[in-house]
């Protein structure tokens, strides 16, 4: 039996640490798991994991290969490996070349998802340079996910959200407070 009742994938890059802090502060989502792909140097991995856990009040881990995704938990993709989510909500770490110049890449994680009957999915792209997340958002929309990006004017750098919007696959453009409220309404 699948324990997952919802899955949120959040992609972010430059400016993302501050955005994630605002988005997830004391949020406690009990009806979904949250997977975060934040572009960052390797030495930030552990300190960001600890920061998210402390700030959100949700357990946050750096997933290993083959880990079963659990509700109420945040998974922060590790530097240096792409993170895929297999059909039965299990992690798969992929040692491969960078995609969109980055590893882990938002696109890889989002594109690994498959349509799941009755399990709501939500894809979120926040502030960042480049175009990572755009193909992922298009894919998530195609399998029935609710897709949202941060308002470009509130981004430190708006490249990623602009690229996602340009796909025509974004359901909503919201500031961080509104995305946060959307998460609570759907999965709190």
């Amino acid at each position, binding site marked *: 039996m699948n324990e997952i009742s919802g899955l949120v994938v959040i992609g972010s*890059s430059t400016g*993302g640490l501050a955005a994630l802090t605002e988005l997830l502060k004391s949020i406690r989502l009990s009806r979904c798991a949250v997977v975060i792909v934040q572009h*960052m140097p390797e030495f*930030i991995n*552990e300190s960001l994991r600890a920061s998210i856990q402390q700030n959100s009040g949700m357990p946050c881990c750096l997933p290993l290969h083959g880990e079963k995704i659990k509700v109420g938990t945040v998974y922060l993709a590790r530097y240096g490996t792409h993170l895929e989510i297999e059909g039965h909500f299990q992690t798969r770490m992929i040692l491969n070349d960078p995609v969109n110049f980055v590893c882990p890449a938002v696109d890889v994680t989002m594109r690994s998802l498959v349509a799941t009957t009755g399990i709501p999915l939500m894809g979120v792209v926040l502030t960042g*340079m480049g*175009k990572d997340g755009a193909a992922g958002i298009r894919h998530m929309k195609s399998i029935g996910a609710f897709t949202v990006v941060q308002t470009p004017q509130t981004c430190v750098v708006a*490249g990623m959200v602009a690229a996602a919007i340009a796909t025509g696959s974004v359901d909503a453009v919201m500031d961080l407070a509104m995305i946060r409220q959307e998460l609570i309404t759907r999965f709190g």
Partner: protein
Amino acid sequence: MRILIVDDDEDVRETLRLVLEAKGHELHFAEDGEQCLARLKEGFRGLILLDIMMPRLNGWETIEKMVELGLVQGNVICMMTAVLDPGRTGEHVASHVLHYLRKPFLEKELQSVISQYGSFCGGETE
């Protein structure tokens, strides 16, 4: 906290010195990317406020060199530039740029960056 200011504009360096010294931060300076790399080779670890348009090595090239030379560890990089939007010029080093300050910026914006990102400087690899 330890802050390395990398900018070829002396006025910018001096203004930041006035603002940040008063707050008790330990400041280091570089006039271009090459001097930045020299400070890093000397052992600087902390927050780097990095201009983009500089002679010899620009900001993006400086980050490329930091990666190549293994000088990224422990350093939080914040670009500090008049360029409104980097477009896709910096996406190849996106993993290493945690923030982006647009000149001219307010002191409170700078303080916000320092308070938000200071705790990540010098973080340890697992």
